[in-house]
């Protein structure tokens, strides 16, 4: 009972905080791995407290697909600088002016981090389900 109430209260805060970490990653403490681990831990908590059926009735996502698409995004942002004539893995800074909001800067490192985030969430949850559900290896 206590665990359920706390989990309910905490999960949105945790996910929001992990997103903050994700977006801050390229020039402040944080980053894709930390954010991904945090989001995955929220899911782990849900699995523990509410059980497998509850979680999987709400999120039908195939975690493997999540990890694979994360990989694709990561590779895309790692190779993108090649097209622009920069070395592999360079971070490219786009900056442009938006009305009302002022100057906005976007670094390609954020995209890379987002890919890592998806990979981490996807693979941790795949492993969790593997060991929890007793699916066969290999």
């Amino acid at each position, binding site marked *: 009972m206590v665990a359920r109430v706390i989990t309910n209260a905490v999960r949105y805060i945790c996910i929001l905080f992990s997103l903050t970490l994700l977006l801050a990653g390229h020039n402040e403490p944080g980053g894709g791995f930390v954010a991904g681990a945090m989001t995955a831990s929220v899911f782990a908590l849900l699995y523990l407290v509410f059980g497998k059926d509850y979680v999987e009735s709400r999120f039908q996502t195939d975690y493997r697909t999540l990890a*694979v698409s994360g990989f*694709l995004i990561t590779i895309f942002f790692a*190779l993108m600088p090649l097209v622009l004539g920069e*070395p*592999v893995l360079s*971070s490219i800074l786009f900056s442009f002016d938006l009305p009302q909001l002022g100057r906005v800067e976007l670094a390609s490192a954020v995209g890379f981090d987002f890919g890592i985030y998806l990979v981490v969430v996807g693979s941790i949850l795949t492993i969790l389900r593997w060991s929890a559900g007793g699916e066969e*290896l*290999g």
Partner: protein
Amino acid sequence: MSLLAALPVVGSLTTAVLLLVLSRWPRIQKGLALGSNLLLFSIALALLVEVREGGIQVHHLSGWPPPYGIILVADLLSSTLLTVTAGVFLAALVYSLGYMEKESLRLSYLPLFFFLMTGVNGAFLTGDIFNLFVFFEVMLLSTYGLLITWDPKGLISRAEKLEATFKYLILNIIGAAVMLLAIGTLYGTTGTLNMAQLSVRIQTLRAAGVVHIDLIALLFVAVFGLKAAAAPFHFWLPDVYTSAPTPVSAILSGILNKVGAYMMIRLTSLLFVGFEGVSEVILLLGLGTIILGGVMAMGQSDIKRLLAYSSVSQMGFLLLAIGLASGQAIAAAIFFLVSHAIISSMLFLAAGGVTHLTRERSIDRMGGLAGSSPFLAITFLIGIMALAGLPPLNGFISKLLIFQAIIDSGRLLYVLIALIGAFLSIVYNFRAWLDTFWGKTRRTEKRSLSLYLLLPVGFLAAISLLLGIFPEPLVDLVSQVGVQATTPDFYVEAVLGGVT
């Protein structure tokens, strides 16, 4: 700055990810795997040509110049090994298309295969010692995955496979901890992770009389000895090679062993140049490995286990040449490395064919295969003659070069021990061949091998024969490699360009 130096790593990584995405379309997946492996082979060749003509190629990842950023360095040594890697992987890939079960091939095998290639290529190319650790782990993680792939043709029980993988896993986690310890201590002592800068600073510190650098070098020898399966660290190898699916065993003995040996070359000829104590330790490890591997191979009856121990014994010859650390010895080591990579992977692939034909792993219960499968008999004969070091094969020339290097260094006792090892290798190899292919014909089943299984074996055997009859181009190449690898100034100059 060169783009070509980054392509082997980037290319194989991209392929791995695309293969994951394409797992719903098996035909396209197979085509992509083959195509990109061919492409990677030609990239490696192009890199070799480029390095031979234009000098050492350096790629600064994410644009940070060394010593601040991570760099990929392609010198002659690494690009030669990259070419061999791509070749052996190509053979193993074609073989696995005919050998592995469709489901596991599609879901995990092919992507992991290219993740493994990423790790190996990265380990050969990187110029940063911590990055080397990362690529080692990429390599090992994908190896664990490949080891437990379901493999009904290998006649191995699931429990045995899991136990061998667990053993390998524990040893390699401990190895990784030791390597990290060594890297940390090295960084604390020298204040850099860049291999070129390390090479310079270690010499300065040694001249200043810092004692514990020798100990760090020994820690590294232990770690790379574990990877190369040198004598006291060899005990994981037979179990792992025996329980792995055949094409994976071929890669393990052909390439992954050699990554350890490659780093030993870097240790004695780039990082810790002129450390006689360290070289002496490597020499002794080599001698022990030759004898132990040879003696253990004599008593084996499982065909893959016999080949695994013979692979241990051959690694001893390689370590012997590396321990000598002269330009001539390193050249001999690289010739040996290249030819053993080809021969041992070919033998493992052929042994897989034999197991598939006879439904049997023990050579005591085989016999008379020469009649039903002359192709396998001939290629296997080429393989064991090359391993035993008989002319006219590449194995003969590689052993000749190594013996020459030992004699020139004046260590006659070592020549004697190595000769005993070479003699043992003739005995156990021919025992395996005779027991398998001659004698009374036991249970023959009417089944034939598909072209997928025969083609790679024939390809590798042909290369082995070609290198034996026309060794001059490779001998030229390896003597250049030997000169470049044993002169750290070239590497340092290319990487740092005057900054120290």
